[in-house]
């Protein structure tokens, strides 16, 4: 059975690869059943919202097309801290909660600002020689993202 360190490294590796825009390697961390969702709660309309929702094929399509769009090229830095890892030995899964901070650094001058905060709520599959992401919910606390961003967190 894989240990907590392996799970934590999966989470951190996912951050590093997205920061590097290495989308292929990022998707290689994900199982075939991978589901990626960004959610936020709006007090203004009293509703939980879904801001992005894709399976692995949808993420593949999204990440392939993004370079064709005009976009803010300021790089993001994702900083995650794994808070809890709950193993389910029977299911060969782990439920992982990490806090997430996303920083944006201006290309022109290099000033860095905090862009978003939230949590990763991950389901990690443990039935191979390395853990894989089966599900990631990015639960955002930040709802004001300025002009937005194309690349998921």
């Amino acid at each position, binding site marked *: 059975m894989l240990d907590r360190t392996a799970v934590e490294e999966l989470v951190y590796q996912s951050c590093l690869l997205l920061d590097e825009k290495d989308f292929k390697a990022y998707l290689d961390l994900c199982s075939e059943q991978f589901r990626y969702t*960004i959610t*936020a709660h*709006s*007090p*203004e*309309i*009293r*509703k939980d*919202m*879904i*801001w*992005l*929702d894709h399976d692995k094929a*949808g993420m593949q*399509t*999204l990440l*392939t*097309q993004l370079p*064709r*769009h*005009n*976009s*803010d090229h300021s790089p993001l830095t994702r900083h995650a801290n794994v808070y809890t890892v709950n193993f389910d030995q029977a299911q060969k899964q782990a439920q992982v909660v990490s806090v997430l901070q996303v920083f944006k650094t201006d290309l022109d001058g290099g000033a860095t600002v905090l862009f978003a905060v939230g949590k990763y709520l991950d389901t990690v599959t443990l039935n191979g020689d390395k853990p894989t992401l089966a599900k990631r919910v990015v639960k955002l606390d930040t*709802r*004001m*993202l*300025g*002009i*937005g*961003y*194309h690349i*998921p967190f």
Partner: protein
Amino acid sequence: MAKNAVQWEQTPKLPPSHYVDSRIYTDNQLFQEEREKVFNKCWYIACHESEIPNACDYRTFQHPGGAPLIIVRGEDMQVRSFYNICPHRGNTLLYDPVGNAKRITCIFHAWSFDAQGNCVDITREEQGYQKRFCKADAALREVKTEVGYGGFVWVNTDDSSESLKDYIGAAMSELEPYINMPLEVFHYHRAIVDTNFKLWHDTNSEFYHDYMHYFNRVTGMMQPGYFDRKCVGYDNGHVLVGSMEIKYDAYEGSKQRGIGWPGLAQGGWILIDLFPGMTYNLRTSVLRMDTMIPLGPNKVMIEYRGMGLKSDTPEERAQRIFDHNTIWGPFGRNLHEDLLGVQGQGRAMRENTDSRWVLHGREENSTIHDEIGMRHYYAEWSRRMGRKAFDPYGEKRVTAAA
């Protein structure tokens, strides 16, 4: 050949109605005038009725004219609006964006008001005021409020304004058949952008910026009839961009669009820009509503709402949300590009950047790459402001032969 300083200053070789002085986007004095002469005279969308479904539900709203407002549904289920300002010592009455309050009680000295704006309690009233001042003297300031055009709550701070119906006129006639059923907000987010509010409205008024969108380049301009859509101007500066059917198959990931919108052709699209800063955008399966709250000459807060049908099944709602997010969500493919564009305008047109003119000069038989929508808007802006958009300070400096 590049221009020298004198040539840069010269007015464009176009009719004066076909360009504007860029200082209308940067001058704080003009911005303050816009609050007074435009935003405090026009009807404006504050929220949607589905955001305050129950008696005593309220929603706060920062009116673009400046006043903070409370939108509240009374116990009689009528929606009313008031200044979110205590008439006692000017404190904010309601701090949260939403809530339910049978009594609106100021936290400062506990003066209390009902949902019709009446003052119902002044703490230690007789001891302090004797008979000189009483609850009847302390009502809230009410703001004209109507609900309509898809269930949106409209407000007007001008007590002597025309009715909402007269203000809108015929501008919504093409869209009204599609939004006459109960709607519901499923998406809300804001963007604060360092740009002038009119530049966002401009972006919503012309489709020439199709070139900015990869999505539009592959789904729109390649298909027959795309350029045939007509822009139609209406009284009070409103503009309809003609409808069409968009073929999404050319864009990978956007092929499954099964649910549509009742009565609207599959892939249908109707866009209406309402003066001075609201846009109804019904596309395929989602109604998007933009409302702008200008915060300064070079700063605007834009509220984005995604709307579905109140009668949606969970599956239908999920599909609308997916369609919305693909294009218009904060991580959507088009919205980010549009905001990037107007942010770039704001960066280039800050005060003292020596930006001089903005061209609205394309004429293509009033079709969607014609810039007639903006010309129509600025004609109304000029009328209300008492200033010409191409010469806002009366300098009469036409220097190039038009």
